[in-house]
């Protein structure tokens, strides 16, 4: 089984996770830039983070046989902080880089005018750089936030098939599917979605343009949720081909619109299996 986790924050995870993910079948992932849990106070802090997503983290992933790509953006929360908004001026430089397969995470947190501006500006950046966009839907007031997101997407120069609406659930899947955008679901231990609810959504809405991710980060989360959804799908009677479509072909098709996916990472060196990253000082 081959698995593509289209949304996972590996910076917050250990090399044990990489190894377990590889063993579970994960061969590729996308790491969206997001809020660190601790507010940033300057654009330079974003740049160090972007550089890590373009340098160190892909190297770390490659040692475990996993292809790493990223999405870059000013995230919805920090779009409200004037100390951070100059990041928008630097994004054109970053969005030209290999390994950047979308603009994201963008979208709404509290639905403020500053978030309106950042979302519209970054949808335009995606159009300018021929990149898809990964759009976070808000945790609070989700359905209203989704409708407002879809309105902004419709007004943008980015076609809906270049947009992935993420963190959907039973209450938002219908409107998202009707918009023509791709539908993303984050499977969490407690919140958002679980694997059985996900299977029910796939039974009701089909497997086309449906994308499943773990969204694992520094909070309570599970980087193997993609595999658990695959297993739950098989148990519920979906075929191997259905699983491959949802867990591999769909994310490859969505992010592949960037023209920048490189999925040919070598298998991990058996000498390094179970060992730590070579540190140069160990």
């Amino acid at each position, binding site marked *: 089984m081959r698995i593509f986790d289209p949304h996972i924050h590996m910076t917050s995870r250990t090399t044990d996770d990489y190894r377990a993910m590889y063993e579970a079948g994960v061969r590729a992932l996308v790491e969206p830039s997001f809020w660190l849990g601790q507010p940033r106070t300057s654009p330079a802090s974003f740049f160090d983070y972007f550089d890590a997503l*373009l340098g160190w983290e892909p190297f770390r992933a490659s040692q475990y046989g996993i292809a790493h790509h990223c999405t870059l953006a000013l995230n919805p929360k920090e779009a409200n902080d004037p100390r951070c908004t100059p990041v928008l*001026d630097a994004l054109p*430089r970053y969005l030209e880089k*290999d390994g950047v397969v979308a603009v994201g995470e963008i979208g709404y947190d509290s639905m403020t005018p500053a978030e309106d501006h950042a979302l519209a500006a970054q949808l335009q950046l995606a159009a300018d750089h021929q990149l898809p966009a990964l759009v976070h839907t808000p945790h609070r007031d989700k359905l209203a936030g989704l409708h407002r997101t879809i309105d902004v997407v419709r007004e943008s120069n980015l076609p809906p098939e270049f947009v992935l609406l993420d963190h959907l659930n039973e209450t938002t899947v219908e409107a998202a599917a009707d918009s023509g955008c791709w539908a993303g679901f984050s499977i969490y231990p407690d919140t958002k979605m679980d694997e059985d609810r996900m299977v029910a959504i796939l039974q009701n809405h089909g497997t086309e343009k449906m994308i499943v991710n773990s969204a694992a980060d520094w909070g309570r989360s599970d980087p193997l949720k993609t595999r658990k959804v695959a297993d739950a799908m098989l148990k519920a009677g979906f075929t191997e081909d259905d699983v491959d479509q949802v867990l591999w072909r769909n994310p490859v098709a969505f992010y592949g619109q960037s023209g920048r996916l490189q999925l040919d990472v070598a298998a991990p060196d058996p000498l390094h299996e179970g060992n730590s990253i070579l540190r*140069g000082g160990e």
Partner: protein
Amino acid sequence: MLKSREELDAELGGAARAWLDEALAEAAHDAEAAHDAPRPGASPYASPPWELRYAAAGRRCGPEHADSVRSLLLVAARATLPSVTRLYEQGTAAERRAVLLTLHRLDLGPTALPLVEDALRANDTRLVAAAVGPYAADHLDPHAWRHAVLKCLFTEVPVAAIARLGERARGDAELARMLGDFAAERTAAGRTVPEDLRTVLGHARRTPTGPTTPGAAPGGVARTAPAGADAHRATPTPAPAAPAPTEES
């Protein structure tokens, strides 16, 4: 290896060749303009067009040609220290590597050493390998150069990547001592001694002008230590605190 413009022209398709022509023209134009003069009203984060092309080189010309194309752009732009520093600091690992591989072709003297030193602090072996090229051979001081050699051994970067290894290592008694201590530490930990260590040690034990001096090895590691168990059993005399090698080593 980096390819010349002529070699690239022979290998690139028409669209890629045209893109490269335009990119090199933009870089050359930037070289003619006042370097790094602040543009009135410009964002501090705005980039000259050729620097955006520097990022896209692999997609336009093929990943196998990315290093060569980026290197040609740096040379055509006669990239200055602020420019190479910006491209390095804000670059992907591949973009950083191309800067490191090109430093010796730019008129920078030793001023770009901080970039090499940064790469040698990295754990990304692609950067370490690119940092020990001709520029490092020309400019790294003896202490930093010896640590670069050790870093390669630690991180399993083949020492073949180190430019002018034989010349710089020749007769370097301090390097030989460091290699001996490293071998002792590995042996004490029950780990193998990297094959490449013997290669470097062979250079370090040559006299500055003559052939290898038998028995002159500081550190006590067997001069012609063969591969395998014998090498692991070598006991370094200047490290009395090190425990004797175990059976398992």
